[in-house]
């Protein structure tokens, strides 16, 4: 790998900018290497140091990032790698990437703190996997080359697989394998779709629009090719291929079955990272690839996607309602919440997209915290069943306070973060209908403020909105049972350790003696930043929203263009470019 040597000799600051994103990936990796060769005793501290260092670097990056110009990719840097294949390690971040990187960096030290006492075996392997996972996730968000993206996207699987199958609960092996196979299968198909786009791009005559005549996997180039020079049917196939990977990751309704299993079996920190960041790889993929690559197809199939989301919202919510296992409940609530998130994307207007991206951050904060809390409880009681525990407010007041706070954030209590994003997602869906302009709902010709074109509309918003009520129901019922009410502790707790039902590999019996009834300072340290973030983003969402404005406006502009100019291949208006394209590719395809 040769660094790009064509740049003029830069000063220190611009050199830092150039390598900023690379460092964000390399620092956790370097610490992973250190942990691998340091004694078990020091592994925790080293890992914490590593995540803190990455966090510090992220703060520097956030400070140097020009937020007023959030749509532009900054800190761009190319490292030539495999020119024969057109692959380079190409990095760059817009404000969406930066926010998600920040979320990843924030959750890093928190997860290390959360696993401090829970992990007692093979500590080094645990933290090495964790740091590699951290690096891979950051890599996904900053990649500007499809293959680099794919490498990071796939490489999150291995450490996660290791985390779940080594430190999970009783059924951890099956859960880890299910998780791996599900997501791997999906992403192979995604790769096929992305390579297909690269092939179309390579097949275009040099100099004609984005086509360079040679292979490249640069996202920026391919996005122009895909959105402007593919027919609707080509875009639809590519969209299907992309969604095969991303929908599994999100997860959307019919392919969500891996998530509850994996979540319940994963160790606490694994669940936090899974809910906090890994699921966002799917929604990020949809925002970064599926929409800009196939705007026409996405617009065309938005109702289908929205319907799947709404099914997920309601179905996930109803399953939560009857859930006994607290962790499973939070896991299914992720299915419902991510349904809102993708619904916002499917609205394809400013409100929906902003709400959706904000949702990615907020869900990471509040659901991550809920998983932490459930994990802390499990460490003390070795059960997550609502039948066996209840009224913990009496025993663990601090824990109970945090629990209520984060449940409120998750439900969408106004003033906390969840409300803003959920409201925006539903608002976006509500506005996204052509019927506002044609006079079916509004008066024809007069502009309804905020109404946009689109294929969704009030009905979708209404049904999805009922999901909010369901969410309030199941979460509040859970709080009512677990936090309030008469104190109920599992039999045998505190005395002889007879309770072995949920005893998995994560053998906390040894450490249990050291844990006080309520949260320790370490645990509170892990929760506090999340609580502060929830509060701040709930009260002052404006800075975040304005930071997201750039990329969102750009995406909406892309969609509007697609609305006005039908894609090449649509019978009515064939542009010259479409003609050329058709000439080049159609005969060959026809002969197959």
């Amino acid at each position, binding site marked *: *790998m040769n660094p790009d040597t064509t740049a003029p000799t830069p000063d220190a600051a611009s050199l830092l900018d150039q390598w900023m994103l690379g460092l964000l990936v390399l620092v956790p990796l370097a610490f992973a290497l250190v942990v691998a060769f340091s004694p078990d005793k020091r592994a925790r501290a080293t890992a914490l140091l590593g995540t803190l260092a990455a966090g510090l670097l992220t703060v520097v990056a956030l400070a140097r990032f020009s937020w007023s110009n959030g749509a532009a990719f900054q800190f761009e840097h190319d490292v030539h*790698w*495999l*020119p*024969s*294949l*057109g692959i380079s390690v190409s990095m760059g971040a817009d404000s969406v990437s930066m926010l998600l990187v920040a979320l990843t960096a924030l959750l890093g030290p928190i997860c290390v703190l959360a696993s401090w006492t829970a992990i007692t075996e093979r500590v080094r392997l645990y933290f090495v996997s964790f740091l590699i996972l951290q690096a891979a996730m950051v890599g996904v968000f900053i990649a500007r080359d499809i*293959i680099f993206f*794919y*490498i990071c996207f*796939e*490489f999150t699987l*291995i450490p996660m*697989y*290791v985390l779940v*199958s*080594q430190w999970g609960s009783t059924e951890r*092996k099956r859960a880890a*394998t299910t998780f*791996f*196979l599900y997501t*791997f*299968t999906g992403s*192979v*198909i995604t*790769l*096929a779709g992305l*390579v*297909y786009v*690269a*092939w179309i791009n*390579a097949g275009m005559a040099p100099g004609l629009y984005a086509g360079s005549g*040679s*292979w490249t996997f640069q996202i920026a180039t391919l996005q122009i090719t895909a959105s402007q020079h593919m027919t609707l049917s080509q875009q639809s196939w590519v969209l299907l291929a992309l969604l095969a990977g991303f929908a599994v990751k999100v997860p959307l309704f019919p392919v969500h079955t891996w998530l509850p299993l994996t979540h319940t079996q994963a160790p606490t920190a694994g669940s936090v990272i899974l809910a906090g960041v890994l699921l966002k790889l799917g929604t990020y993929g949809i925002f970064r690839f599926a929409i800009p690559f196939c705007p026409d197809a996405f617009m065309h199939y938005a109702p289908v996607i929205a319907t799947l989301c709404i099914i997920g919202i309601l179905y996930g919510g109803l399953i939560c309602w009857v859930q006994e296992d607290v962790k499973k409940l939070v896991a299914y609530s992720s299915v419902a919440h991510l349904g809102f998130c993708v619904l916002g994307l499917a609205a394809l207007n400013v409100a929906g997209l902003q709400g959706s991206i904000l949702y990615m951050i907020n869900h990471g904060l509040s659901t991550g915290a809920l998983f932490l809390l459930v994990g802390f409880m499990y460490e003390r009681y070795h059960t997550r069943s609502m039948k066996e525990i209840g009224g913990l407010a009496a025993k663990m007041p601090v824990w109970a306070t945090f629990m209520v706070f984060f449940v409120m954030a998750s439900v969408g209590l106004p003033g906390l973060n969840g409300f803003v994003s959920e409201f925006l997602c539903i608002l976006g869906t509500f506005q996204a209908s052509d019927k506002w302009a044609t006079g079916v709902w509004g008066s024809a010709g007069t502009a309804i403020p905020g109404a946009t074109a689109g294929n969704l509309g009030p009905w979708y918003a209404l049904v999805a909105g009922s999901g909010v009520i369901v969410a309030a129901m199941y979460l509040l019922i859970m709080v009512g049972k677990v936090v309030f009410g008469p104190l109920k502790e599992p039999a045998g707790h505190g005395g002889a350790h007879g309770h072995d039902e949920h005893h998995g590999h994560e053998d906390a019996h040894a450490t249990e003696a050291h844990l006080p009834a309520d949260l320790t300072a370490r645990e509170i340290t892990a929760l506090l930043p999340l609580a502060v973030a929830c509060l701040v983003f709930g009260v002052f969402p404006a800075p975040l929203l304005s930071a997201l404005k750039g990329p969102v406006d750009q995406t909406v502009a892309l969609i509007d263009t697609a609305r006005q100019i039908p894609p090449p291949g649509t019978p009515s208006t064939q542009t010259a470019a479409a003609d050329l394209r058709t000439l080049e590719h159609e*005969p*060959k*395809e026809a*002969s*197959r």
Partner: protein
Amino acid sequence: MIGRLAYLWPEIALFATTCIVMVLGLSRSLPMRKASAWVCGIGLLAALGLSITTTPSGSTVIASGGQAMLPGMAPFAKCLICLVALFLLPLLAGTVDRAEEHRIATGAGVFNPLRSNRAEFYSFFLFSITGLLLVADADNLIWLFLALELTSLPTYIMVAISSERHRAQEAGVKYFFLGALGAAVFLYGFALLYGATGTTNLNAIHESFLSRGISTMAIAGLILSLLGLCFKIAAVPMHFYTADVYQGASAGVAAMLAFVPKTAGFLAMLLILATVGWSSGPGAASLPEPLRLLLWVIAALTMTVGNVLAVLQSSAKRTLAYSSIAHSGYMLVGVIAGPGDGSFTRNGISAVLFYLLGYGVMNLGAFAVLASVEKPASDGGEPRELDSFDDLRGLCRTHPVSGWTMVLCSLSLLGMPPLLGFFGKLPLFTSAIGAGEIPLVLVLGINSAIAAFYYLRLMAMPLLEEPSFRATAPVDNPFVSRRFAGLLSAGGVIVLAVFANLLMKESTAAGRYVARPETASAGAKTEVSVAQDGR
């Protein structure tokens, strides 16, 4: 004709080495006998050097009278063969004569040439590699047939003598009879090709196809040749022997079987298909329809059957055997895609050549792990090589080198980025998409996902399971060089991926396909009626 000599220097060097090894291996003194492996290595190094420096490529091919459709293939193929053979050599250490030499060393027995296998073993190994090199520069059907046989015949014996167990002999016999069947089928195909074109020279056959079209008899000949070669590459209708033979042979020899005959088969397939070319089909750039259809079905079946059966196995060795079938299916996708426009991303031939190297390197590591750890026999008899998945339990903790080699190699075989296997598979993807074979790409993708099932197990067993501490727990065997071979392979999986660009450039040159070489006589060029150039 003397020009042909230019091709043969590596083979000559290897043959000379073979003669030395044969004598050394029979020597009365143990150290002298043990030197035979080192002499082998020196010979292979010499052959590698000679392949780089002396083998003609490009325009010199015509002057020296080699086959001219794939002018760049011979040097690249020879280098890759010598390189992987050099990796294989340390892995084969101690395959034969272990008990016998132990007895001599402890003074319990004296040297008896009748009981020594070392000379045969190493010279057969070299013979087989020599045959493989000869396949790479074949320009004639007879040459090709003889080279293929020289590649295969020694391997039959190597399988049989690789272990003292009866299973090895059974495997050897099975392999031999089915191998003979395969040879008969492709020989029949060659005969039909000769009947259709009146020549055995590949260039002349190509000219004949260009000038007189491809007759039905020629198609039949090509189909039979391909089917026969399916035995060599372990592709579907001829794959039945694979699991039994690999399991019966010792792991080192199994690693060799997964590379040597497969490479021979693919090189031969490319040489034969080069005569019809990838521009005579109904598509813009594809094989004639019957051949394309045949290979399409074989590729899809090979991938699927290999992967599905691999999932069902409880023996790691059998799993690797079935996975080797599946990998042949992947490479067949590249063969179907053909040379495209010659750039690396579209050239299926380059993709196949690159994949052969990648597969040779990473697969060797997996077998090296099985070979470098062994389970002591409960009755004090000969220790047993690892076989089942259970034997791999917790290897990363008890035998870190072997364990991590297995983890890396199985991830690479799975095609996990950013390891070598991924960069091998990617050009297969791109070239097949470039050739318009989208359904086949989907089959390839789905199969990669099925493969995740067993490669994951292969990775998880050493990394995540608890090691067993019973009396029969695996122990390192005394041959350090086997672990070294594993390390080489694991290192190769990473290093070759990082510096893949160089290899990609070389394999692009190697996969260059010349549809109408200059050797064509003036007459042939004027009456080109059938074949149209692709683009």
